[in-house]
């Protein structure tokens, strides 16, 4: 046991609220590390060519990027313990450059690992029950879930037991590891969708039928990338008993009939689009009817075994509101702003959900230094049962904080530069790494995010603007989810120049919509101006209580197009 492990073991409030490996899980992950170590050795010996090695390193989260390898670590359903967060910090220090990047799929990326070090990194992850399995490659990827799982007041059921169940089922699946293309599954159990399930290959929504039975609405064929689609319902109510069988049926239909002639048309969304949802539903139902469903039948004991790990922590009985909090807000206006913007309602009286923004003004969205990771780990232990979450908005969530403790937590975060009060506001920008790191990128994303963030550095102005999601992708693959940003920005390359295409009206929730293109692309320099003018136009047009997207929906896209057109007439070369 290392000193860190020893410290974790001795901690009185050691995490109780997330899955723990049993001997089988632990052995499996160790075997995967050993297999990968051997694959690296065989790659270096020449037994495996680079082409042969590629899918296997990708299935272990290892990409070859612009400057170096990139290792993507899985954070299943975005849930982390303090101990795991510390390990991520230690790895960043030992094998990378002292920081990591939290992604839109609740994962963490290291940008500078060496190939020969990666087996040791995986070993260090396995020590704390983590891995990088299936964070890339044409397989079932890390399953994501609502980052407010288990604590949101609007929840029917915690989605994480389902997500963990699927993590295990999908791990090294003999049949579905060489799919036409990547396959992403997201789960939510709430009335509001915080997991963007309608833009995943499969989205699962936990629902209750008239008889009170729990089941899943299954949505298929959503996705972003170069051809964005909102998913369509393939199963309106799939009882839990049949969930795995139903998913096997979908995957088998996709594995057999998904296109393999063109990688840009290989996602299941294209199959659904080309065949139509009715034909796909018929094929899935036929396969479902033909298979031996008893093999996949729900095992309630196993599900209960998993669900027990996600039991609520030992909450105290508290009044619903906190006098300590009220007094502190009056004393410290900066703290009051933080509470108003970054703190969400918790299902347990007297507790709160805190969003720690990884979007400081002018910073790199989603990046955290190893020191910040350690501060977050400490904060979670002092104030939140040692549990953390990663949101798909690239922020960190402390899901169980006593309202009485909010002020002390805020001071701790503030001292570490982690108290930016912008959750959900205009500077809480989702951005992919873009040209600064990524070999696929056609333009820079991070500097654009930084410039926009600086433009709106006045926090009171941000609060006046209200909820507004800006999402930036540095290429058509749309890792920055620009299609579902209320304002989306897509960086392209035109005649050797970066050109940014702006879309408006995207929405990743149950009311999902794909953003509409505003007009011709603009330059990197013009982008903050255009965004600012669009925001000012919204402020001038909005009626009481409207968010940006509400106003856009009410007055229409054409009015916003005029803003960009006027921009052009002002002499800008657009």
């Amino acid at each position, binding site marked *: 046991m290392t000193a860190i492990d020893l410290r974790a073991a001795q901690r009185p409030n050691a995490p109780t609220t997330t899955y723990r490996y049993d001997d089988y899980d632990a052995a499996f992950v160790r075997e995967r590390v050993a297999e990968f170590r051997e694959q690296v050795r065989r790659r270096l010996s020449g037994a495996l060519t680079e082409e042969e090695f590629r899918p296997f390193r990708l299935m272990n989260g290892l990409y070859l990027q612009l400057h170096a390898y990139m290792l993507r670590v899985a954070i299943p359903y975005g849930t982390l313990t303090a101990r795991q967060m510390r390990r991520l910090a230690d790895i960043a220090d030992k094998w990378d450059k002292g920081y990591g990047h939290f992604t839109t799929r609740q994962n963490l990326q290291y940008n500078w690992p060496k190939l020969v070090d990666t087996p040791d990194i995986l070993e260090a992850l396995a020590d704390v029950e983590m891995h990088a399995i299936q964070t890339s490659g044409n397989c079932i990827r890390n399953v994501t879930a609502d980052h407010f799982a288990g604590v949101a007041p609007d929840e029917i059921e915690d989605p994480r037991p389902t997500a963990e169940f699927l993590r295990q*089922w999908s791990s090294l699946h003999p049949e579905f590891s060489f799919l036409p293309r990547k396959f992403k599954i997201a789960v939510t159990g709430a009335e509001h969708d915080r997991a963007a399930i309608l833009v995943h290959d499969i989205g699962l929504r936990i629902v209750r039928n008239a008889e009170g039975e729990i089941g899943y609405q299954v949505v298929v064929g959503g996705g972003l990338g170069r051809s964005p689609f909102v998913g369509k319902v393939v199963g309106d109510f799939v009882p839990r008993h049949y969930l795995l069988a139903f998913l096997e049926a979908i995957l088998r239909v996709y594995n057999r009939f998904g296109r393999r002639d063109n990688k840009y048309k290989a996602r299941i969304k294209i199959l659904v689009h080309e065949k139509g949802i009715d034909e796909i539903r018929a094929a899935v139902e036929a396969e479902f009817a033909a298979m031996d469903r008893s093999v996949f039948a729900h095992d309630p004991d196993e599900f209960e075994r998993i669900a027990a790990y996600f039991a609520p922590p030992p909450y105290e009985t508290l009044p619903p509101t906190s006098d300590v909090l009220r007094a502190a807000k009056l004393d410290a206006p900066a703290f009051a702003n933080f509470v108003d913007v970054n703190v969400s309602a918790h299902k347990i009286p007297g507790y709160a959900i805190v969003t720690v923004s990884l979007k400081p003004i002018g910073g790199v969205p989603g990046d955290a230094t190893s020191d910040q990771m350690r501060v977050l780990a400490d904060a979670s232990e002092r104030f939140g049962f040692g549990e953390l979450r990663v949101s798909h908005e690239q922020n960190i969530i402390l899901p169980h904080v006593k309202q009485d403790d909010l002020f002390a937590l805020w001071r701790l975060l503030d001292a570490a530069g982690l108290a930016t009060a912008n959750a959900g506001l205009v500077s809480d920008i989702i951005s992919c790494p873009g040209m600064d790191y990524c070999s696929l990128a056609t333009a820079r994303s991070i500097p654009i995010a930084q410039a926009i963030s600086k433009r709106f550095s006045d926090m009171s102005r941000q609060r006046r603007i209200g909820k507004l999601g800006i999402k930036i992708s540095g290429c058509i693959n749309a890792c920055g989810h620009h299609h579902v940003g209320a304002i989306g920005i897509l960086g392209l390359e035109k005649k050797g120049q970066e050109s940014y295409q702006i879309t408006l009206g995207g929405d990743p929730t149950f009311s999902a919509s794909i953003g509409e293109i505003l007009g011709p692309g603009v330059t990197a320099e013009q982008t903050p101006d255009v965004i600012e003018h669009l925001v000012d136009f919204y402020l001038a047009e909005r009626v009481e209580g409207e968010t940006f997207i509400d106003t856009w929906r009410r007055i229409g896209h054409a009015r916003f197009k005029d803003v960009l057109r006027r921009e052009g007439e002002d002499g800008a070369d657009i």
Partner: protein
Amino acid sequence: MALISNGRFVEDAWRRLADEEALPKAGKVIVSLPRLQHALEVVGPEAALGVIVPNTTEPSALIEASPRLELVSISFPAFSDGRGFSLARLLRRAGFKGELRASGRLVADQYSHAVGCGFDTIEIPDDLAERQNEEQWRAALNVYAMSYQRGYSGRGSILEARRSAARS
């Protein structure tokens, strides 16, 4: 070509018949799918019949012939094309009991996937067999003690093991 069975490079008892070659009276021969119907009609009881099929074949096209078929070889046009895994599953589900063979540039790291889906043997080109020797194929079978899935062959299921542990 090299043939791998149970983690060993073995002699191939089957002969792949070119379409212009006459059907023999005896022996183990593999014909192409377009020739299968004819072969079924004319080949004598002394001969054993196998067929090589594209990975896009509808399983129903083989089910009718399956009582007479002793081998089905599924082509893998690229090692990363996983359709053959699903086709193997479907043939096993339909009750095919003969030898299932994966033919193509599969790599050793896929061996346990193939076995899990019901394949018995893997046929790879010689240049690949040279780089990925018998030792690597044998090792690939023993990387994992168990797997998370149920209903796939090869290894014990973690879910089953947990279930029986809970019972006892």
